[in-house]
């Protein structure tokens, strides 16, 4: 369905964020992309959704194709109409719009009225809380509900491929579990999913295939369950190896320093 071939992306003509990434999202599957901050995960999603330009990013080489359609250079609206819709990182719901208006905004790229009505029904069925709160301002919802709204808003466009950018970010473990179930359910109803996550436990639990991104390159890829068993993933993303703990702490503090100066 979606195939990315040796993609290179730079920001401002200098910073290489993605270097030669190749990736496949087969029809009807859930594919997880793992990686720490700065691995190029969000850049990858921006490239697919066509919002790279808003960040002064540019595709230097490679291709992103949906079936036969080349997505590189298309505007975000065209990509939504082609059936690829993103749930952005940090939910980014419209806090001053009501829940209902948020959903309507999500359906803007969808010209088919019947499909929109069906999508809305499906969203309310999946997230009854959104129906209860439909006239409330989005900003008044809890974090978990906002994530539900962000996903529901994306579903309003009846996507063939749903892109999720760190849906577990800042949510309680119980809510993260629910998000995982929601993703599995959306996939069961026939939508392919590309899931970008730092929470490897949830992501690998729901995904069929997984890729690990490291500083702009794919370092590991394969079947999600098999990948979850490998030493690297266990150590780096699932935190099962006690010996590595001191090393990780120092790595984290090193990063913090560089962030303060940046």
């Amino acid at each position, binding site marked *: 369905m979606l195939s990315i071939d040796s993609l290179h992306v730079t920001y401002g003509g200098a910073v290489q964020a993605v270097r030669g990434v190749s990736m496949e999202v087969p029809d009807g599957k859930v594919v997880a992309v793992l990686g720490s901050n700065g691995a190029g995960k969000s850049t990858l999603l921006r490239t697919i959704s066509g*919002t790279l330009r808003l960040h002064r990013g540019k595709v230097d080489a490679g291709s992103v194709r949906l079936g036969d359609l080349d997505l590189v250079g298309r505007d*975000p609206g065209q990509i939504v109409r082609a059936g690829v819709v993103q749930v952005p990182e940090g939910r*980014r719901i419209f806090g001053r719009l009501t829940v209902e*208006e948020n959903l*309507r*905004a*999500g359906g*803007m790229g969808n010209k088919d009225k019947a499909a929109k009505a069906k999508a809305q029904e499906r969203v309310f069925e999946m997230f009854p809380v959104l129906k209860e709160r439909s006239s409330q301002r989005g900003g008044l919802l809890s974090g978990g509900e906002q994530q539900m709204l962000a996903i529901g808003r994306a579903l309003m466009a009846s996507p063939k491929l749903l892109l999720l950018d760190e849906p577990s970010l800042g949510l309680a473990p119980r809510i993260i579990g629910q998000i995982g179930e929601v993703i599995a359910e959306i996939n069961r109803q026939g939508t392919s999913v590309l899931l970008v996550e730092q929470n490897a436990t949830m992501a690998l639990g729901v995904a069929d295939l997984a890729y690990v991104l490291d500083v702009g390159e794919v370092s590991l890829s394969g079947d999600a369950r098999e990948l979850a068993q490998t030493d690297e993933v266990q150590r780096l993303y699932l935190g099962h190896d006690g010996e590595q703990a001191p090393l990780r702490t120092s790595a984290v503090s090193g990063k913090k320093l560089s962030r303060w100066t940046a």
Partner: protein
Amino acid sequence: MTQFLSLLLNGVSLGALYALIALGFVIIFKASEVVSFTHGSLLLLGAYTIARASDSIGFFPAVLVGLAVTALAAVLVERLIINRLRGAAVISLAIVTIGVDIIILTEMIRRIGSDILNVPHPWGGGSFRLGDVGISQNRLVAIAVAAVLIGLFFAAFKYSNWGIAMRASAEDGETAALMGIKQGQVSALAWVVAGILAAVAALFLVGSPTPGVTPAAYAVGLRAFPAAILGGLDSTGGALVGGLLIGIAEALAAGYQDQLLFLGRGFSAVVPFIVMIAVLMFRPSGLFGTKELTRV
């Protein structure tokens, strides 16, 4: 008392016209992130077009032509200049609009010269009296038309797809783009609407009690800026309240100018700006504006 009521009524009428202009100013700011100073000259362009066209094709067709020409001019400014400069600093864009404003204004002054063009309003130059409270018929029609347009505007802003797209895009442009909302379209439409509202305001502002279309109409357009700013640059409700406030303050200052003589003649023309400064001293983001306007 009757003098006060008359002044109040005239103030509301003037304020409603200011509100029309200010609404356009606000939606342009929301949709294109531009503080547009083109409104004064667009207003003059609208008035001039209506006056010139009504000589040959009659009043009502001329109004349509005037609205169309003003909307077209506004959308051309957006498409040819503002849209291509997207991402430039807000202050640079504002200065660009001042440049455009001066170009249109200069051409208007050249064309109008020292003439006073007359717009043949079918409601005539007479006045309407209810007891001792009086208002020119032109300004009375203005209240009615402005009320209808403002009502339509708010309904569209609240319920239509355009309104939702506009508000979503103003709140978070990138996310709106991810929903398939085309920012370019939203922005262009905002300029069209702003152009139409400015032309409608122009139509009434150049009628009785004002003599006709002169370059002075430009200054009237300028006085709508304080309305938008004191209401809060990004608040449509604020534009309405700000417009009314400034219209009433100006009318009262003009009506009581004999009592205010110690401030000098023509004091009413600066009242809108004084009211704006007074409000901003206590509420820096205006009456209803969002506190933090900078986007991260």
